[in-house]
């Protein structure tokens, strides 16, 4: 177990397997490369906590929670640095923005974070697909998804 300082929960113990390396950093945070993936107290969110700056943490969600068939359309050859051989090697996350007033939570489907589940090395990618934007209303899209399912 490793003790780390987190933005959301103060001092926490994590396991080695929760550490995620993002060698190129997240856009705008290029100097931060080491993160811990922590289950948020509120499902289905995760915290991506920087190990190098306790004040930097991102909320993540798996896009399939509100977008069943999310596929950012990123070719595996583009992900050579992640050393993935099939799409099954990848875990896909979207960064969530919670505005200060607490409403209208959005997820960024245009700039997903893809992680090799075996090596836990990841990168923020840019989806070439026009249907994905940086601010998708999570609750609205969840509601739409439920409507599509037969009762």
């Amino acid at each position, binding site marked *: 177990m490793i003790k780390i300082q987190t933005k959301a929960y103060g001092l926490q113990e994590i396991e080695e397997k929760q550490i995620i390396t993002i060698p190129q950093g997240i*856009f705008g945070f290029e100097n931060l490369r080491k993160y811990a993936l922590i289950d948020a107290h*509120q*499902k289905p969110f995760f915290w991506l906590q920087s190990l190098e700056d306790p004040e930097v943490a991102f909320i993540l969600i798996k896009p399939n929670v509100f977008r069943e068939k999310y596929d950012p359309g990123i070719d595996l050859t583009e992900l050579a640095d992640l050393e993935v051989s099939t799409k099954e090697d990848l875990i896909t996350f979207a*960064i969530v923005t*919670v505005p200060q007033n607490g409403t209208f939570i959005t997820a*960024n489907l245009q700039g997903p974070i893809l992680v090799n589940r075996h090596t836990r090395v990841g990168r923020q990618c840019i989806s*070439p697909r026009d249907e994905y934007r940086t601010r998708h209303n*999570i609750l609205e899209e969840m509601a739409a998804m439920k409507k599509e399912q037969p009762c």
Partner: protein
Amino acid sequence: MLILSRKKDEKVMIGDQVEITILEIRGDQVKLGINAPKDVKVFRLEVFDEILKQNKAAAQGPVILPTLESGE
């Protein structure tokens, strides 16, 4: 900055693998065709800026998360 003038259907090479073709010029809009290896990422600058801006906004959110209503 290197500045080149090109006409419709003329091309620019960047290195030996990236080829940019001026496909169409109409008013203040230019249509470009880009041929590049798959590991060369090409995107509109606004897209990149928008993602960067959103990352910064995301990092400034509150630490108390809302719960997603399950509705069940």
